């Protein structure tokens, strides 16, 4: 049965299903009305029906106004319902755990903060808000988990984020929903939701040579970042300690927040958002640092702000 095929496995799945049920009720009622009227009129007012037609409505104006207003009110209600839920889905909770996803034709690469890697699979603990930070190495893909009722396009050249809280342990489909070339239909995988202890075991068994941040530290030196950003270089550059998650005043007078997206842009397109009081001397690293190294560098910069749990 349908409800067995598609479990409600995330905290928002119930709400989306509620919205879908509401929409089904409204559209079902309207559809029933339209088809019922067509049927009744087709029978009652068929040509050889002797029924007295009586006086035909002359003033159509009040009918038009009333069904226009009724339609507007119902539609506006549906809009607010859908937009409210969408807005809440757009803002991840502050304490969400981050997992990085890199898509390419035709596989999903997942990097956990502890350094665990998986391909075409994503292990997550139950009842924990998870934020996916996603990017693509080539074309546009889309990370779609029907059991969670969420999807998000994964674009090349930028980070897209999506969050969820899994509530039901189990194994669910992961689909690429944006057509991405020949083996689009094979770009599928599994999302495995585990209990906290099972997930801890899984992390331990798949442990690697270090967390993403630890792996990022040598990269920070190898790519030459430390030459200016470590505080004792010859070039004056903003310090990165405590930077992550804090407000950054820019040279054009605006203020932005140093999130993953900002850090990525600051490394690849440093001239776009220059920090106030500094010269735009940093060279671009676009095409120099591959996506997977970029993730490690960002994890390393995150680790320089220890008071922020993310």
């Amino acid at each position: 049965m349908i409800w067995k095929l598609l479990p409600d496995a995330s905290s928002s799945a119930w709400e989306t299903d509620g919205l879908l049920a509401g929409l089904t009720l409204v559209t079902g009622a309207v559809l029933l009305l339209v088809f019922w009227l067509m049927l009744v009129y087709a029978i009652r007012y068929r040509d050889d029906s002797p029924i007295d037609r009586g006086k035909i409505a002359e003033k159509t104006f009040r009918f038009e106004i009333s069904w226009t207003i009724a339609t507007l009110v119902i539609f506006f209600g549906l809009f607010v319902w859908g937009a409210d839920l969408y807005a809440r889905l757009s803002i991840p909770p502050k304490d969400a755990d981050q997992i990085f996803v890199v898509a390419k034709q035709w596989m999903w690469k997942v990097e956990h903060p502890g350094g665990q890697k998986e391909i075409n699979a994503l292990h997550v603990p139950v009842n924990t808000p998870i934020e996916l930070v996603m990017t693509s190495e080539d074309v546009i893909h889309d990370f779609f988990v029907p059991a969670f009722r969420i999807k998000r396009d994964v674009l090349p050249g930028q980070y897209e984020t999506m969050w969820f809280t899994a509530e039901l342990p189990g194994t669910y489909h992961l689909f690429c929903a944006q057509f991405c070339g020949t083996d689009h239909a094979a770009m599928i995988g599994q999302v495995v939701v585990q209990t906290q202890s099972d997930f801890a075991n899984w992390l331990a068994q798949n442990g690697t040579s270090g967390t993403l941040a630890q792996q990022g530290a040598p990269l920070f030196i190898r790519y030459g970042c430390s030459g200016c950003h470590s505080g004792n270089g010859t070039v004056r550059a903003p310090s990165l300690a405590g930077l992550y998650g804090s407000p950054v005043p820019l040279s054009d007078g605006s203020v932005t927040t140093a999130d993953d997206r900002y850090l990525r842009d600051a490394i690849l397109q440093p001239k776009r958002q220059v920090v106030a009081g500094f010269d735009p001397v940093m060279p671009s690293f676009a095409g120099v640092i591959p996506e997977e190294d970029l993730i490690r560098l960002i994890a390393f910069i995150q680790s320089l702000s220890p008071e922020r749990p993310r």
Partner: protein
Amino acid sequence: MSQTVTATRALSYLEDGKTLRSWLLTTDHKRIAILYALSITVFFFIGGSAAALIRYNLITPEGALRSAETYNRLFTMHGVIMVWFFLVPAAPVTIGNFVIPLMIGARDLAFPKINLMSWYLFMAGGACALYALFAGGVDTGWTFYAPLSSNYAQGHVVAVVAGIFISGFSTIATGLNFVVTIHRLRAPGLTWYRLPVFIWSFYATSVIFLLATPVLAITLVLLSFERIFHVGVFDPRIGGDPLLFQHMFWFYSHPAVYIMVLPGMGIVSQIIPCFSRKELFGYKFVVWCSIAIAVIGFFVWGHHMFVSGQSPYASIVFSLLSYFVAVPSAIKVFNWLGTMHKGRIHFNAPMIYALGFVGLFTSGGLTGLFLAALAADVHLHDTYFVIAHFHFIMVGGMVSAYFAALHFWWPKITGRMYPETIARGAALLMFLGFNFTFLPQYILGYLGMPRRYHSYPPEFQVLNVLSSAGASILAAAYALPLFYLTWSLFRGERAPRNPWRATGLEWTTDSPPITKNFLVTPTVTSGPYDYNDPHTKLADV
């Protein structure tokens, strides 16, 4: 076409010149409509064959066609041909081309030579696209999303895009022709509010042709430049923005939906009053709803991009506007029902097709409410729910309306009556086959089956097999008119001037009309739906 014989009866447009040359160099809007009708019928069956292979492939979870590459090229071909070489031009260039001048009492369109040129452009574009699709095809989907289409896809992307680009100019020419014709060539006394809703709808469609198609042309040129010269408009590796392509593409392709469906609304607004023997309910509301749809339709393109990474604020605005654009459509449905109320309803084939349009269009429109609701779209986007939704509008709705128009004006176009009983049967079969094919796809979409999948997890098989079974019924229903309409050309009963006792100037001239349409320019003294004699009987009912 010089007339050497001074006949007592003026020649009909079909008899006026028998050579191939007289057809290929004609400037008569009626003959050009026939040329178009033949061409788009060929495209319809090519696109339909691709659809049949798609449904065949999806019978088994691992894909009956074996090759994902082949499948991807097939659905791209299906989409490209059906959208640009059937649905967008179908009603305007055939029905509109034939009927508009007759309906407004004109001898031809304003620019007959441009009309002929538009057919040649259409054929050139079609040949270009067909060559590319058969020489190896493309596997980008009809949406050509960058950077897949610009940097990664193999195949003849540029040739297909060139075909669409060229045929775009044909629709621009047609739109221009209609706008000028409707402004300048109306018969004396035919004021704007005496125009049939059909004319208003095609006018609105033509305005969209003129305003939206150039944006598509620009988009496709940029895409070709990107692919050949790597200029970096859409490719993020050299500073481009892949979302820009989507914004530009949907700025055309969403209004294109209204290009497809507005003519359908115009068609049923003629047919329902005629077969209910009653004035159209709320004429002015229906008229202004068409205009409202055409205008608001330009500001809803972002609802194709709710999960694409566009700003959530933009998404919220686009969601609200998408609900607004649905209001006029809903009003029209109520007005058609109001027209049937207290009428004297006849169930000839055009009416059955028209009621099929109302039912399927309403279903498709209502499922659009799901996709306009932001959080619901996050789940349903890019699944089979979307496929089912837009096929209800475009195939269920628009193709039904196209067949309704074909049957309604068939006596006028050919001078022959079609066989009524089998036509009614085909209309019902089409409605049933359509629902059988596409209703299971709504459930597939809810369950999460993504679109454009060559293979799929086995739990989706039952619904896919159901859908494919329905498709075979639908295919039979589409083939039927091909046979009985062709038969009627030779054996059909001769049609009188006005077999439906319909109002409208096109019914006051001969069936088929003479080359100059009217011997004397008609003068109009009343409104478009003057069905005030309730006891008029249709000729054959």
